[in-house]
C-alpha cells in the first residue's frame, strides 16, 4: 500500500483494515500519534489525511492509500510555538492530537473567535485540564501567523 506521510512517499505491507494508527506507530515508527480510546472519541490519535483531521485509531489504512498523511512529526509551526509560549502541556499525551486540530482550524479559519477555538477543540480530550491554555495558545498562534 502506498501513500505519503509528512511529504515522503511510503509503502507498507498491512492488512487493509489495520487502523492507520498502528501502521504509523508500528511500521513507520512515528510514535508521536497516540492511542487514547480506539474509537475516535478522544482525539489523541488525530492526523491529517489530505488536509483533514481524522482519528487514525479507527481509520482503516486502506483509506489513506494514495493520500497524503500528516502527523505531529511533520509539523513545526506556529501552533507548537504558541503552545510552548502559553505553557499548555502537562503530561503531554493529548498534545499531538490537539496540534493537528488547531493547525486545521487555523488553515480553514485564520482568525477564529475564542468560542470558535473552543468548539474546534471539542473533539480533543485533555485530562490534565490544560484547555484554557490551549485555547489561549491557538488564539496566539492566530495572531502571530499574520
Amino acid at each position, binding site marked *: 500500500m502506498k501513500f505519503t506521510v509528512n511529504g515522503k512517499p511510503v509503502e507498507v505491507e498491512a492488512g487493509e483494515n489495520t487502523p492507520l494508527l498502528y501502521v504509523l506507530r508500528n511500521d513507520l515508527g512515528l510514535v508521536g*500519534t*497516540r492511542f487514547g*480510546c*480506539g474509537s475516535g472519541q478522544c482525539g489523541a490519535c488525530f492526523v491529517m489525511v489530505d488536509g483533514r483531521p481524522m482519528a487514525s485509531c479507527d481509520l482503516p489504512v486502506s483509506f489513506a492509500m494514495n493520500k497524503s498523511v500528516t*502527523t505531529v512529526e511533520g509539523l513545526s509551526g506556529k501552533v507548537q510555538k504558541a*503552545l510552548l509560549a502559553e505553557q499548555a502541556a*502537562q503530561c503531554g*499525551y493529548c498534545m*499531538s492530537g490537539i496540534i493537528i486540530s488547531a493547525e486545521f482550524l487555523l488553515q480553514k479559519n485564520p482568525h477564529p473567535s475564542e468560542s470558535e477555538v473552543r468548539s474546534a477543540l471539542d473533539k480533543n480530550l485533555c485530562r490534565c485540564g490544560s484547555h*484554557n491554555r490551549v485555547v489561549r495558545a491557538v488564539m496566539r498562534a492566530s495572531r502571530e501567523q499574520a
Partner: protein
Amino acid sequence: MNRHGIGQPVRRVEDQRFLTGKARYVDDIQLPHMLHGAVVMSPHAHARIKGIDATQALAMAGVHLVLTGEDARKEGLGGIPPLFMPEDMGGPKGYRTFRPLLEPAKARYVGDRIAFVVADTPELARLAAEKVEIDYEPLPAVVQVADAAKEGAPKVWDDNPAGNLAFPLMMGNKDATDAAFAKAKHTVAVRLYNNRITANTMEPRCCIGDFANDAYTLYTSSQNPHGVRGILSGAVFKMPDKNLRVISPDVGGGFGMKGDIYPEDGLVLWASRKLGRPVKWVATRTESLLGDNHGRDQLISAEMALDENGKILALKAQALHAVGAYVTNAGVVPVLCALRNIPNVYVVPAMLVMSKATFTHTTPLGPYRGAGRPEASYVIERLMDEAAKKTGIDPVELRRRNFIPPSAMPYDTTANWTVGKPVGWTYDSGEFAKLTDRALEISDWKGFEKRKKQSEEKNRLRGRSLIYYLEDSGVFNERMELRFDPSGTVTVVAGTHNHGQGHATTYAQMVSDWLGVPFENIRLVQGDTDAVSFGRGTYASRSTMLGGSALKGAADAIVEKAKHMAGHLLETAVTDIEFEEGKFKVKGTDKAIAMTDVAKAFYRPVGPTTRFGTGLDASGSSAVPPSFPNGCHICELEVDPETGVVEIDRYTVVDDVGRVINPMICHGQIEGALAQGIGQALMENVAFDAESGQMLSASFMDYAMPRAADLPAHYEMDFIDVPAKTNPLGVKGVGEAGCVGAPPVVMNALLDALKIDHLDMPATPHRVWQAMQKAKA
C-alpha cells in the same frame, strides 16, 4: 538575580519533546521479539469459576500462552496486599485482601482478571482471549455501597466475619459531641452521595515485561516505580529487589490512579519468564474504565450544631465509603482523609465522625486526585451553607466567625478527641480571612446583584457561592541525589516521579539558586530503579515538599563536601571559606571560586586534588510532616431553566500553597485540578447497573469529561504565600488543591441559583431540570 531561580515563571524544559511527538511513553517502546498480551476480564460482577478451557485459544496459530489463576497458585505467586490497613497505624482491625494476579476461583467484579493470553500480535491476543472458555456460575452481586452494608447482602469475601465491612474508622469525642448537640440553638443536616469518578488518564495503562538472565525488567506507566518494585518482588514473586528493575518513562497522566500496582504489571513479567521473550500489554479504553482504580463513592449523613451567634459547637457524621472488590495499595487513604479533614479551617470544638469502608462487587477504589479531601470539603462546606440559611447569617460572615485565626497556629484539630487522635492534624499556618478578603475583592462579589438582574433579563437563574478548603499534602519520607558531571553540569536523581508536574524545571530552579549552577546545566533523572537508588514516587502533592526538602539536604551536603576542595584551591583553611551565591569565598577578601569550578576539580585524574575523593555527589533525605494548602473559591453560575444546562460564568480562586517555586506551573496545576473538580460536580459519573454490576459508562461516549467548551473561559486566580513552617522550603502542596475546592463551590452556587436544598453530583442538565420540576410541584 537568578532569572531561572525560585519564584520565577520559568518555562518548562520538557515541553519541546511533548510538542513535537518526541515524548516516550511505555507503548512507544518496542523490544526485539516482543509478544503481546490480552487480559480476559470477568463479564460477571460475582461468579464462581467452575472451569477454564483454553484449548481453542491455544490451538490458534501465533498464540503462545494462556495463564490462569490456578497456574499462579501452583507457581506460588503471591497476591497484591494493601500497603497498610488502619490496624497497622493503631486503628481498628479490618479485612485485608491479597489480590492475585488472576482470580482462580471467583470473580468479584466486572473487570476482574481471570486469564492472560499471549500471542504474536495484540490483535491475535485479543481474538484468542475471546476463545478462552470460562465456565462461570453467576452469583448475586451487590453494587451500591448502601446495599452492600445491609444485613444479608451478598458477600464479596465469603470468609470475612464482618460481612462486607473492610474496616471501620472513627474519630472525635462522643460525650462532648452529644453534649454540644443537646444545647445547640441550631442544627442542620445533609445527606450526600459523593459520586464515583475515575482518573481516565489519556494514556491508558501499559506495561512490558522482559525476563533475561534470571532478572526481570518491567516498563510500566507508573507514578511510583520503587513502590511497584517493592510489592512485586516482595509480595508477588517473593524474590530479592535486585532481580527486578522497574522503568517508568514519560507517563501520560496519573492523578493517583497510577500510584498503584496492577495485576498486569505482574502478568507481563510472569509471561515473559515463561516464554523467554518480552511481553507487552496495553489497556483498551474500556479496560481502563473497568480496571483502573476509581475514586470517591461515599455516602454520608452529617449534622452540625451551632450556637445563637453561628459559632460551630459540634459536628457528627456517619459514612459508608466503598472500597470495591479489594483494598487497593493506598485504599485506606481516601476513607481516612474523608473523615479527618472534615473540620477544615474552622474551630470545631467537638466532633464525632465515623466511616465504614465497605466492599462492593465493583472496580476497586483508591486515591484519585484529592483522595478523601474532596469528600471532606464537600461535607463541611455544604453544611456551612445550610447553616447560613438556617441561622440567617450571611454565608461569608458565618465562615469568618468560625475561621481558625492565625493567632491560634499551630492548631491541633484533635484537642478534645478521645478516639482516633493519632490520625488528626496540627495545622502550622494559614490566614483564611486574608485570603477570603482577596477572593471577594477580585471576584467583584459586590457586583453580584447587578449580574443577577442581567441574568434574569435573559431568563437565566444566577447563583453564587464562596467556600474555603484546606487539605493535607505530602506523605512519607523521600530521598534525592545531586551529582556533578566532570564538566560541571548537574544531574538531579529524583526519588519522586514527574508525570506532568514539571519537576525537571522546578528542581532545576531550586538547584540553580542554591548552588549557582546555570539552570540549563541541570537535568533530571527519574523513573528507573537502576538509576535511582530509592524513592517513593509522586502522589499526595508531595514532590516539591518532600523531594524539594530532600534536594535541599543534598545541596547542603554538596556545599559541605566542596568546601574542603575550595579551601585547597584557594590555598586557605576550610574555616576561612564561606559559600554565597554559588561561589566559595575567602572571608574578608575578594578571592572566590565558582561551585562549578570546584566541582570540576573533583574529577582531575591525578594531582593533589585526588585526595578529596573522586567525583562530587551527595544525597539528601526528608521526612517532613504534612503541609496544609488552603484557599478560597468563589463561583458564579447561570442555569438555563428550559434545559437545565449549567454554565459557570465567573470562577475565582485565591490559594495559599506556601512559597511558590514557579507560578506558571502552580497555576497550571490549580487550573488542571479545577477542571477535574468541576467535572465531578457537573458531568462525571461511573455508573453501574445496580442489579448486574455491569458498567454503564465504559467508554468516552458514556463517561463525560470536560472538554474545552465545558469549562469557564477564564479563572480569576491569585496566590497569597503563607510559608509552611513544616519544611525548610516553606512550600505546601499544589497538585490536588483545585479539585478539593471545586465540587462544593459549584454545588453550593447551583443550589443558590435553584433555591433548593439538595442535589447530588453530577449536576447534569437532566438532574437539574428534574430538580427544578420537583421544586415547582
